């Protein structure tokens, strides 16, 4: 069953358009017939049981998986320009013994100058500027392995926001983050979304915060089961079936 709540064509405010997307790995069909529109400045949450194909979907959008169908991006005024995608990967566990500071991590990602020679003044200033966006300036000299789940997500978010992307994709940003950290993180995403008119696509297993923060919720299980307003989806029969009968956690 597919519901495309935005109709076939969409105006210039549509940032990401996915049509008839299917992904096969080996002979196995992981996703089929996915249709999804993400508008500019909108937060879309992908939910679904484990193994439903959420991460696969994100990888297809990122261009890390082969797929059939259409994935098109557009910006106001510039159609189908190659977009800049900011990506925060799943389970970002660092070895606590790795002597890598947050500043080093940024330098490794953004500069060609070997990070082991130390950061130049301008690089350090840039890192601070990035961390400021996630209110994390004080984290700059901490070792990445010693950050809490919420701190780490903020650092990775800051990393994904430089250079400022057109679309931000987060894979399970709330896993491993405590309840307080979740709200902080979601507030931050909300702030960034509004300030930069950024489209955000994220997967999550935490449904309690969705009505407050998500514009659209998409329930996936090898294809889209239902999509729409958070309340509609969370109270649908499809949702109950996907999670209760499979013994998933709500």
């Amino acid at each position, binding site marked *: 069953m597919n519901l495309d709540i935005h109709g076939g064509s969409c105006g210039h405010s549509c940032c990401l358009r996915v049509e008839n997307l299917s992904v096969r790995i080996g002979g196995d069909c992981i996703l089929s017939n996915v249709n999804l529109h993400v508008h500019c400045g909108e937060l879309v949450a992908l939910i679904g049981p484990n193994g439903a194909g959420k991460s696969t979907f994100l990888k297809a959008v990122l261009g890390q998986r082969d797929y059939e169908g259409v994935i098109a991006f557009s910006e106001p005024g510039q159609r189908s320009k190659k977009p800049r995608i900011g990506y925060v990967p799943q389970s970002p566990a660092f070895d606590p013994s*790795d*002597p890598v*500071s947050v500043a080093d*991590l940024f330098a490794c990602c953004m500069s060609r*100058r070997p990070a082991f020679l130390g950061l130049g003044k301008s690089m350090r200033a840039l890192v601070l500027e990035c961390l400021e966006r996630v209110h994390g300036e004080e984290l700059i*000299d901490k070792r990445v392995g010693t950050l809490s789940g919420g701190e780490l997500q903020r650092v990775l978010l800051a990393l994904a926001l430089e250079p400022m992307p057109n679309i931000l994709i987060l894979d399970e940003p709330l896993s491993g983050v405590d309840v307080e950290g979740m709200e902080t993180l979601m507030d931050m995403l909300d702030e960034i979304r509004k300030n930069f008119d950024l489209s955000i696509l994220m997967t999550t297993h935490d449904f309690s915060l969705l009505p407050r923060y998500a514009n659209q919720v998409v329930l996936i299980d090898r294809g889209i089961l239902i999509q729409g307003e958070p309340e509609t989806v969370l109270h649908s029969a499809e949702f109950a079936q996907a999670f209760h009968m499979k013994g998933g956690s709500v």
Partner: protein
Amino acid sequence: MSLWYWFCDFFPFEMLRWDFMKNAMLALLLMAPLFGLMSTMIVTGRMSFFSDALGHSAFTGIAIGAICGMSAPTWAAVLFSVVFALIFSYVRSRSNQAADTLIGVFSSTAVALGIFIATLGGGSFTKYNKYLIGDILSVTPGEIGLLALVLMAVLIFWVLCANRLTLTAIHPQLASSRGIPVGLSQTLFTVAIAVVVTLSISSVGLLILNSLMVLPGASARNVSKNLRQYHGFSVLFALLAGIGGLTVSYYLGCSAGAAISLILAVIFAVTFALRKGNA
């Protein structure tokens, strides 16, 4: 070389009067910083055991080279090590088994193959001992020149790719999401270790090689908070142990390789004890 000899004569140390000591010292001064640098990446990338396995695969390469009648089987060993490293990288990327398990598989296969070839038709492998054990004191100026060239090449590769390699080692998924070809980086890194290990092995020996490739990085991790300290300490420890070990071996008349390794072990113990304040 003569410039180096002339330089050594400036020092009033008795041990630096001998040419073989001058050679050994120069080889160590070249090797130690580079191995210190590489060891950080080897330890971060969890490849410590791999460099050991490569040492063994080099032996097989030497045996194959000797069978084929090559006068300098070192090159056959380099080739074999590179092939070994490539096959290992391929299998690692396709298998869901832990890297140390796979290294065990490859290491024992390589050793068995080497001994099988060397002893085929009743041969003895004592003549290969030189390659396996090696001795820093017997290093020749020609070997030092070759070592310097290879080390220079690796250093350039290192400086160009350091950030990508670090990111790949600490978080492969993040690296790939930043557009870094993770598989290619890992393979290049593996091949670089293979070449360095194999070329150094016959001139300096397996013992020094493995301790210099793992211990400086492991010790530096104990006391470092960022990459700069990590690399700085690692290079410093490698140099200290290299020079210190050679000196100790001269005055006590023991194996230089063993002395260097033991000093590194002491450094590790000391940094381990100091680690609390930094955690």
